[in-house]
């Protein structure tokens, strides 16, 4: 079994898995959408900047420190919730206000994490083992439990794809339903008719390999491959994220 945990290199020398995931996510974003990311979310943050440079110049970038449309990530290092995001922003809109916005149905896209996902679209970011006597206490779902039900499109990205991450049944349902996409180092899941469906696999893998690393039986209509990062995408990516913070999680 090939573990994709921590594997940032692809067989291709032109791009790494983190580049591919960033491009795949950027392509999911549309112009004028309001898009939020939280802490430990460098990859989506870079994807938003990439989308803004390419096809979504009016995308509205929202974040925890409250900087609306920071113009640059040059000062961003270990944190995707740092005050640097407000420094170059065009206006301010606090975290509390972002949540309120989502409650009102006006947040188009929310990026969320999670540790375990099951075939029914349940998300666990809370505990392994019982909630009140956990074997492992996880960091917690942050905004997931209120954003997944209310954002128009909830995108989960996860830099690990293994059988402990994609399971038959999660230990604890931090939240569920209304997932739109899950992007992993191997594939993109969609959520339709109450279950995760394999939407596309990345060019660096095979359906067999995805299945081997997934704890539930894959279902798909037909196999599609995600497109490798283009030269243009890679050029812009290196410009908006010269420090390669998109790879921090790998």
């Amino acid at each position, binding site marked *: 079994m090939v573990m994709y945990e921590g594997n940032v290199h692809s067989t291709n020398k032109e791009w790494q898995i983190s580049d591919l995931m960033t491009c795949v996510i950027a392509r999911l974003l549309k112009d004028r959408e309001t898009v939020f990311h*939280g*802490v*430990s979310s*460098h990859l989506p943050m870079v994807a938003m900047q990439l989308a803004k440079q390419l096809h979504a110049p009016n995308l509205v970038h929202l974040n*925890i*420190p*409250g*900087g609306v449309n920071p113009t640059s990530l040059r000062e961003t*290092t*270990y*944190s*995707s*919730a*740092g*005050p640097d*995001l*407000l*420094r170059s922003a065009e206006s301010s809109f*606090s*975290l*509390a206000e972002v*949540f309120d916005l*989502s*409650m009102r149905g006006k947040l188009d896209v929310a990026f969320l994490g999670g540790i375990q996902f099951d075939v029914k679209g*349940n998300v666990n970011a*809370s505990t392994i083992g019982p*909630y*009140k*006597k*956990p*074997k*492992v*206490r996880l*960091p*917690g*779902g*942050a*905004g*997931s*439990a*209120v*954003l997944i*039900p*209310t954002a128009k499109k909830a995108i989960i990205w996860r830099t690990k794809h293994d059988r402990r991450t994609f399971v038959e049944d999660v230990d*604890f*349902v*931090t*939240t*569920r*339903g209304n997932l739109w996409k899950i992007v992993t180092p191997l594939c993109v899941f969609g959520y339709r008719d109450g279950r995760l469906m394999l939407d596309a696999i990345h060019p660096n893998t095979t359906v067999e390999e995805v299945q081997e690393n997934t704890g539930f039986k894959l279902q798909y209509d037909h196999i599609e491959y995600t497109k490798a990062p283009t030269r243009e995408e890679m050029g812009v990516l290196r410009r908006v994220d010269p420090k390669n913070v998109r790879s*921090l*999680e790998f």
Partner: protein
Amino acid sequence: MSKRMGLEEAVQSFVKDGDVLTFSGNALHRAPMAFVRELVRQNKQQLQVAKTAAALDVDLLCAFGLMDTVHAGFVSYETKYGLASYYRKAVEAGQVKANEHACYTVICALRGAVMNVPFMPVHGLKYGDLLVENDYFMVVENPFEESAEENPGDEVERVTLVKTIRPDLAVIHAHMCDEEGNAIIHGAQYEDILISRAAKRVVITAETVVKKGKLNSGAEKVDIPGFLVDAVVHVPNGAKPCSCEGKYDVQDMELRTFLETKSMEDLRSWVKTYEKADRSFIGKGRNSGGVRSW
């Protein structure tokens, strides 16, 4: 009326065992670390902390066994610095209760305190085990909707309520403050304004303290009016090793030293290294050692 005092006095006066605290900042940004270290030095017990996203503040209190319950949406360092392992171990050992919230439900629970109501309705929390496992969430029927009575076929709208959290004390590390507590925060404010209104008492630790009338800013730039503030503590570098916008970034080496602590001795020694700096300013314009003046 000056509210200046030293850090030791502020912790002595405003924190007792069992208090519910809330802290400024988010994750590794502008947590009032000097104050948290003084909680450790004074061995304040059975503390509760309410915060959307906590990191070193909560992890340090867990490391010393001073924490009882954490009300938070997220407790972890960001990517590069890994998980909050003291917090994690304490919860797994049953020593600390982790009351998991969505970050927004912490905000709503604090809004309940601001408005002095016992609960706050929350639109988004509709599904999942957090609703089932926690007694601070409850689902009720919308009492303004009468369609169900009129049309028995219709379902009445259900509304989730979160129980109000009333912190005993908010501790906010600000950039500048006058001696009456009028405080200014530069850049990202996170939930600081909210907690300054939600808590029963407010202590400001500040990089710079000036005399009344010397803030040199318009009224609109003062983020926390002095009349809400109970004590002002002058602590330059009071957020370190967390960041403080425009003053300093996260102190990588200091933070790593903490993360690599292996024993209570390592932990005590880490807290000790800050002691002189944390406590160097006292009230009334004199420092304890005669070296620095206010």
